C-alpha cells in the first residue's frame, strides 16, 4: 500500500490488523495506519514508525475483536436476514456451550460420572460391533466369496461332523453340475525346521488337495503353486508358505522360494508364497500349505471314514439351494450303493463364511446383547439424572422464561447441554473402542475366525456416532418434555420446591424400573455363567493334574519301521525324562486328556453278537505302564499294566469303571474278553473314570492298552515334577538331542493349564458378562440412590409435617424404604420374567450347568439388598429431619 521505495509496513502487524478489522472498515483503517506510518517514517525514522505501528496493532486488537463479537450477537438478536443465520446459530451455540460448561462445573461429580458411564457404554458397544462387523459382515477376501461353500456330514443318531468322506467327495465332484469344483483338506499341527541347525518348532499345516487353491481363487504371490503331479502320493515333497509365516520366519525374503523346509522329518522344497488373504482361510490361518497325499491303503481312502474338511465353489449363477438338493440326491444314491457306510449319512452345505463364523455367533450375540443392555441401563440412569437436574433448575428456567426466553430457546439450552456431554462421552468411547476390541479378540478363548478384519472403519464409526446420538436423544427427550410441562408462573412462585409433578414422578419410576429389570436380566445371566464356570472348575477330572507336565514329542516316522524300534525310541525318551532331576515319575502315551486327539472305536464282547462298528464304543488309550501312576488314576480291581505286557505276550487291557458297568453290568469285568483291533483282549484290571475332553462331559467307557502291544508313533511325555515346565523342557531337549536330533519337543504345558484351557470359553463368558452385570448393578444402585435421596430432599417439608404431627422417625424410615422397594419391584417383575426367557435362550446357545432357580433367587436377594443399601442413607436422613427446620425452609 505504501508508495514504491518508501519504507515498508511491518507485514505481520499489518496482517493482524487486517484480519481483525470488520470487512467494511478494513481498507480504511489500513490506509489510515499507513498514512500515519509514512509521516512518522519521514520524521522520526523507519524503526520508530514500525514500533508505533506494532503498538497500534496490539492496542487495536482487543477493541476490534470485541466489536466483531458484539456485531455478531446484536445481529442475531435483531432477527437479522437469513444470510446471517450461520453466524447467529453459531454464536448461540457458543453461549449455550459456555452456559453448559458453567452448569457442568457446578456439579462435577454428576458430569464426570455421566460422561464416564456413557463413554464406557459406547466404547463397549463400538468394540463389540467392530468385532462383529469384521467377523460376520465383511465378506471373505476371495473372488466371488458368496459362491464358496463348505460341506459337513450328519450321521443319524450320532451327530454332525464338520468333515466328509474322501470317496464321497470324489463322487459329488464327478456328478455335480452346480459345483465348479470341490477341494478337500485337513488342518493339522506339525513341526517344521527352517534351517538345518535350527531347532524345530510347531506350525499349522494345511494339507490340501489340488482343487483347494483354485476353489478359493487365489494365486501364489511369489513363485508357483504346487503342480498337479505334486499332489500325487509319492511325489517329491513341496510346500507353499503362508504369508505371515513367510514374513516372520523368512523375513519376507523372496529367495525363500527354492529353499527347503523340513516338515516333520521330511525336507520339502518351497515352491511359492501365498498372498496375505490366504491367511484368512482356514480360521486362524495356516503356516505351511502342502499336498494332502495318502497311500491307497489309508483309512482316508475307505468309505467309512469321515475325516477331511471340504470346500467347494458354486458355478456362476448356481443357487445354493439347487446345489444342496443336488448333493442330497447324490448322497442318497451313494447310500443305496454303499448301504453299510452311507445309509445314515446326509450332507449339508453352508456358505463358507457362515460355516467359519457360525459357531461363535451365539457368543457374539450374547456379548452384543449384554453390552446393549448395559448401555440401556446407563441411558436410563442418565435420563433420570438429567430429569432430576432439570427439576432442580426449575427456578432458573422459570426466571429465564419470565424475562423473555422462549420455551424453544430453553429447550435448545438443554439439548446443547445433553449433546455436549454425549459428544465428549462419544469421543472418549470411540477412542477406547479400538483397544477394547483388540483386547476382546486377544482374550477370546478360541481362534476368532477372521479376527484380522477387526478395525474401526467408517461403518463402525457411523454406528458409534448413531449410538451416541440415539442415547443422547433418549436421555434428552424426557427432560425437554418436562420443560414443556413447566408452568413458568407456578415455578416462580416457589411451587417447584414443594414437590415433584405427577408426570415427573411417573417418568422417574419408569426409568428406575427399566434399570432394575435390565440389570436383573444381566445379573442373572452373569451369575448363571459364573456358576457354570465355577461348577465346571470344581468338577474332579478323575485324575490328579497337579505337578504333571505334558510335552509332545514329534518323532520322525521310522520308514517302514519295526514296531520294536519305535517302542525302543519311546522308552528311551521316557527314561531320559524320568532321569531328570526333580522328576519323580514319567510316562508316555499316544493321546492325553484335554488335548486334541483320541481313539474312539467299536469292539465286540467275546461270545456276544455285538455288531462292529455299530455296537458298543469306547475310547482307547495307548499308554506306557507308568501312565496310571503319573496321572494318579486309581486301580479299583485287578492288576496294572506292566512292562512285560508287550508284543508277543497275551494281549491285555484295563477298563474304566463306566466301561465295566455298561459292558458287564452286575458282573466282574476282570477276566472277561473283548474283540478289538484284530485280536482278543483280556481285561486284567478296572480303573477309576476320568473326563478327557471337557469337564462338563459325562464319564465315557475308557480302555487302557499298553503301548508295547499297540504301537503308534504319536507320543506325549508326562512328567511328575514340581519344577517349572520351562526348565524341565530345556534339560529334556539337551538329552533328546543325543537320542535323535530330529525329535521336536513341542506343546509343553502343565496338565493343570490344559484343564484350565478347556474351561476357557466358560471363563471368558463368565468374566465378560459378569463384569457387564456388575457395572449394570452398580449403575442401578447409583441411580436408585440418586432417585431416593432426591425424592427425600423434595419431600423434606412433608416429612417435617409428619414428624411434627407425631409420626415416629422409624415410621418415616420404613416409608422411604418401602417406597424404594416398591420402585424396585415394579422393575423386578418384568426383569424376572425376562430372566426366565434369557436363561432358556442362554442354555440353548452356550453351556449352562447351573441351577437357574437358585441363580434367580440370588439375583432377587442381591437386588433387595442393593436397593436397601442404596436407600439406607437417604432414608436415615429423612428420619432425622428436624420438623422446625424443615417447616421453616421455604
Amino acid at each position, binding site marked *: 500500500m505504501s508508495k514504491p521505495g518508501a519504507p515498508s509496513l511491518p507485514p505481520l502487524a499489518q496482517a493482524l490488523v487486517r484480519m481483525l478489522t*470488520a470487512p467494511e*472498515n478494513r*481498507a480504511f483503517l489500513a490506509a*489510515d495506519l499507513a498514512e*500515519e506510518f509514512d509521516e512518522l517514517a519521514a520524521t522520526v525514522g523507519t524503526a520508530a514508525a514500525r514500533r508505533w505501528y506494532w503498538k497500534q496493532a496490539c*492496542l*487495536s486488537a482487543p*477493541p476490534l475483536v470485541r466489536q466483531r463479537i458484539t*456485531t455478531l450477537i446484536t445481529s442475531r438478536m435483531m432477527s437479522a436476514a437469513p444470510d446471517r443465520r450461520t453466524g447467529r446459530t453459531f454464536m448461540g451455540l457458543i453461549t449455550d456451550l459456555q452456559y453448559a460448561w458453567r452448569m457442568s462445573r457446578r456439579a462435577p461429580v454428576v458430569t464426570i460420572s455421566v460422561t464416564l458411564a456413557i463413554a464406557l457404554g459406547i466404547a463397549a458397544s463400538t468394540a463389540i460391533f467392530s468385532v462383529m462387523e469384521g467377523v460376520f459382515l465383511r465378506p471373505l477376501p476371495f473372488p466371488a466369496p458368496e459362491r464358496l461353500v463348505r460341506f459337513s456330514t450328519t450321521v443319524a443318531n450320532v451327530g454332525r461332523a464338520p468333515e466328509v468322506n474322501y470317496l464321497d467327495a470324489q463322487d459329488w465332484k464327478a456328478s455335480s453340475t452346480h459345483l465348479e469344483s470341490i477341494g478337500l483338506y485337513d488342518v493339522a499341527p506339525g513341526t517344521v525346521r527352517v534351517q538345518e541347525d535350527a531347532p524345530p518348532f510347531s506350525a499349522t499345516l494345511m494339507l490340501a488337495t489340488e482343487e483347494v487353491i483354485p476353489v478359493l481363487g487365489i494365486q501364489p504371490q511369489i513363485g508357483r503353486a504346487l503342480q498337479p503331479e505334486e499332489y500325487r502320493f509319492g511325489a517329491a515333497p513341496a510346500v507353499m508358505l503362508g504369508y505371515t509365516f513367510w514374513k516372520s520366519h523368512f523375513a519376507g525374503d523372496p529367495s525363500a522360494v527354492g529353499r527347503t523346509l523340513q516338515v516333520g522329518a521330511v525336507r520339502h522344497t518351497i515352491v511359492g508364497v501365498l498372498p496375505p488373504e490366504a491367511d484368512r482361510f482356514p480360521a486362524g490361518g495356516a503356516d505351511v500349505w502342502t499336498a494332502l497325499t495318502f497311500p491307497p491303503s489309508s483309512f482316508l481312502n475307505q468309505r467309512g471314514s469321515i475325516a477331511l474338511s471340504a470346500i467347494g465353489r458354486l458355478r456362476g449363477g448356481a443357487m445354493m439351494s439347487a446345489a444342496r438338493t443336488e448333493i442330497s440326491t447324490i448322497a442318497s444314491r451313494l447310500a443305496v450303493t454303499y448301504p453299510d457306510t452311507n445309509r445314515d449319512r446326509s450332507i449339508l452345505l453352508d456358505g463358507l463364511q457362515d460355516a467359519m463364523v457360525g459357531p461363535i455367533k451365539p457368543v457374539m450375540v450374547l456379548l452384543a446383547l449384554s453390552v446393549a443392555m448395559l448401555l440401556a441401563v446407563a441411558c436410563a440412569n442418565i435420563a433420570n439424572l438429567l430429569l432430576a437436574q432439570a427439576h432442580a433448575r426449575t427456578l432458573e428456567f422459570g426466571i429465564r422464561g419470565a424475562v423473555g426466553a422462549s420455551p424453544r430457546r430453553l429447550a435448545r439450552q438443554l439439548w446443547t447441554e445433553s449433546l455436549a456431554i454425549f459428544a465428549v462421552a462419544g469421543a472418549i468411547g470411540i477412542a477406547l473402542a479400538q483397544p477394547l476390541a483388540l483386547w476382546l479378540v486377544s482374550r477370546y478363548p478360541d481362534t476368532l475366525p477372521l479376527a484380522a478384519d477387526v478395525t474401526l472403519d467408517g461403518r463402525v464409526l457411523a454406528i458409534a456416532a448413531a449410538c451416541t446420538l440415539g442415547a443422547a436423544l433418549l436421555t434428552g427427550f424426557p427432560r425437554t418434555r418436562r420443560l414443556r410441562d413447566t408452568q413458568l408462573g407456578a415455578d416462580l412462585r416457589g411451587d417447584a420446591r414443594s414437590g415433584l409433578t405427577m408426570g415427573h414422578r411417573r417418568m422417574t419410576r419408569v426409568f428406575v424400573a427399566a434399570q432394575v429389570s435390565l440389570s436383573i436380566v444381566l445379573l442373572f445371566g452373569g451369575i448363571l455363567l459364573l456358576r457354570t464356570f465355577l461348577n465346571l472348575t470344581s468338577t474332579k477330572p478323575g485324575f490328579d493334574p497337579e505337578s504333571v507336565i505334558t510335552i509332545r514329542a514329534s518323532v520322525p516316522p521310522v520308514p517302514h519301521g519295526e514296531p520294536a524300534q519305535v517302542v525302543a525310541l519311546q522308552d528311551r525318551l521316557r527314561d531320559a525324562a524320568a532321569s531328570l532331576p526333580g522328576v519323580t515319575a514319567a510316562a508316555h502315551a499316544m493321546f492325553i486328556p484335554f488335548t486334541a486327539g483320541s481313539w474312539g472305536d467299536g469292539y465286540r464282547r467275546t461270545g456276544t453278537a455285538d455288531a462292529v462298528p455299530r455296537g458298543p464304543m469306547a475310547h482307547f488309550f495307548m499308554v506306557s505302564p507308568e501312565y496310571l501312576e503319573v496321572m494318579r488314576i486309581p486301580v479299583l480291581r485287578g492288576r496294572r499294566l506292566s512292562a512285560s505286557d508287550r508284543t508277543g505276550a497275551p494281549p491285555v487291557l484295563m477298563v474304566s469303571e463306566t466301561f465295566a458297568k455298561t459292558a458287564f453290568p452286575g458282573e466282574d469285568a476282570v477276566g472277561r474278553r473283548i474283540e478289538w483291533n484284530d485280536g482278543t483282549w483280556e481285561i486284567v484290571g478296572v480303573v477309576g473314570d476320568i473326563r478327557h475332553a471337557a469337564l462338563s462331559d459325562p464319564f465315557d467307557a475308557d480302555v487302557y492298552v499298553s503301548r508295547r502291544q499297540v504301537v503308534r508313533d504319536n507320543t506325549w511325555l508326562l512328567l511328575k515334577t514340581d519344577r517349572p515346565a520351562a526348565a524341565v523342557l530345556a534339560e529334556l531337549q539337551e538329552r533328546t538331542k543325543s537320542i535323535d536330533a530330529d525329535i521336536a519337543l513341542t506343546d509343553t504345558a502343565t496338565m493343570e493349564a490344559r484343564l484350565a484351557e478347556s474351561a476357557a470359553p466358560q471363563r471368558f463368558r463368565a468374566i465378560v458378562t459378569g463384569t457387564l452385570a456388575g457395572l449394570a448393578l452398580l449403575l442401578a444402585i447409583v441411580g436408585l440412590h440418586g432417585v431416593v435421596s432426591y425424592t427425600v430432599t423434595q419431600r423434606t417439608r412433608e416429612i417435617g409435617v409428619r414428624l411434627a404431627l407425631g409420626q415416629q422417625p422409624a415410621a418415616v424410615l420404613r416409608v422411604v424404604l418401602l417406597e424404594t422397594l416398591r420402585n424396585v419391584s415394579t422393575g423386578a417383575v418384568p426383569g424376572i420374567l425376562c430372566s426366565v426367557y434369557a436363561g432358556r435362550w442362554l442354555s440353548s446357545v452356550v453351556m449352562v450347568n447351573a441351577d437357574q432357580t437358585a441363580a434367580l433367587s440370588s439375583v432377587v436377594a442381591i437386588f433387595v439388598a442393593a436397593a436397601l443399601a442404596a436407600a439406607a442413607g437417604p432414608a436415615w436422613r429423612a428420619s432425622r429431619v428436624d420438623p422446625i427446620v424443615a417447616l421453616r425452609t421455604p
Partner: protein
Amino acid sequence: MAKGDFVGEFELYVMLALTHQGDDAYGVTIRREIEARTGRTVAIGAVYATLARLGEKGLVRFRVSDPQPVQGGRARKYFSLTAAGARALRHSTAMLARMMAGLSPDLRGRS
C-alpha cells in the same frame, strides 16, 4: 444498547473529536485529535470500533472520499454526526455540565 441513551466516555471523546474536525474527520485526524487533547495513546482500532458502535446506534454516518490525488492515493472514510448524534452529544454534555454544576474547581478537574 447497554448504556441506553447515555453514551460511553470514549464514545463521547470520539463524537467531540468529530465535532472539532468538522469536514476533515477521518481515522487519522480523529485519533490524533483525541490523543492530543487527552494525552493518552489512542489505538486506531478503538476509534473504528467506537465509530462502528455509534454507527449502529444511528449517531454517526460516513461518506467515502475519492482516492487522494497523489500517486498510490487512498480513499478515506469521513465520519460526521447525524442529527440524532448531535442531539445525543448535546444531551450528554448538558447532563455532564449539570452534574458538575456547583462542584469545587478541583473536583471539576481544573487544577
